[in-house]
């Protein structure tokens, strides 16, 4: 299944929106794999990346997260921001 985040773009920058996206992805990925299309997203605030992808990573665990989620059409900036979100969640979960 594909989830297109265009409706939330081009700037994903507040926690209400990030929460909505997280719940949308999580409700699908519990049952099946998902491709998240970021073509319409130009920018994501760092706290939103943590709120969405960092939280998903911790919730699903590294194996399911890797197996079930793919991201397409993400710019280098979006990729970096997502990576920061995941790593921060991971670092905080160790304490």
């Amino acid at each position, binding site marked *: 299944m594909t989830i297109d985040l265009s409706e939330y773009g081009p700037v994903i920058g507040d926690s209400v929106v990030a929460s909505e996206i997280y719940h949308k992805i999580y409700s699908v990925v519990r049952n099946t794999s998902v491709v998240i299309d970021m073509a319409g997203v130009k920018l994501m605030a760092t706290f939103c990346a943590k709120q969405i992808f960092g939280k998903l990573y911790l919730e699903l665990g590294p194996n399911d997260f*890797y197996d079930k989620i793919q991201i397409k059409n993400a710019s280098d900036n979006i990729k970096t921001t*997502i990576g920061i*979100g995941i790593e921060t969640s991971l*670092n905080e979960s160790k304490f």
Partner: protein
Amino acid sequence: MNSINIIIGEKANIQYASSIIGKLNFFFKLKNRELPNFYLSFHNTKEVDMLGVLLIYKLLEYSVSENCFITPRIFLPKHIKQEMKFYGFHDLISELMTGNDTIKEFENLKLDVKKDFFIAPIALIKGTNQSSKILNQKYYPQISEYYGYESISLMIFQLFTELYSNFSSHALDETKSIMVAHGNHNRIEIACADTGIGIITSMKNTYNTKSDFDIVRNAVSKGITSKPDTNHMGYGLWYVDEVVKRLNGKLHIITSNTYYKRLGNKVWLSHSSFWQGTIIYLDIPVTQPILISNLENNNPTHYLRFV
């Protein structure tokens, strides 16, 4: 009956921010005092900039919402009113001084794009996605078109959202605040202010660090947040600080009694007049974009697949 008469000096701008705060911060001790006979005049004030207008607005807003005075009298000369209009605050302040609810004026704040510059007042309304909708549907398309260079717009909006996130988290019971930007093809200045609990109180509770200077240094460091178990990450102010540093810009952060000032590569930490909450002002050239991907070598492909 005793009266309180305050006359603000010649300059109400970033250079004199600490002085203005020092003259008016007694407001923070007057919550629910409903003092009569208060008179505030700007008749001596010749220069006011965007930050000056924002500070005046925030202090007036505090005094009204917290019932500091009964029927205060404020004198704003014509040129100050014009500056307030220029930055989009005039109607907001008018509503405030007549005791009306300002939420409608917040919702009416508008981006003003002219040939040589734009003014972008942004209402930060907690708990809704309204600010996000306005940014996406109105501000981003027009500011992107104004600059005509996507990376510059992305840098500006990354600054907006990271600053917005900080204010949302530290403002506590404040439900609305304002960020304002003034840009042209060479530079952009962005200012935001709240009267929440401030960075120091917020981070002290988490890190139990003794020195206020250390707390503010930590606030602009990567990965240090006042809220480690929440959505916040400690990258927001670090990104803002790094952009200012690399572009040889200016950054002023005033929070509680501490003043962090960056001019290019140089940083100063000093004591300031007390401000309840946080004020952030930055001024950068927009000739070169600095995005998160320019600052971090993070490669997330071992966490997930990109196609």
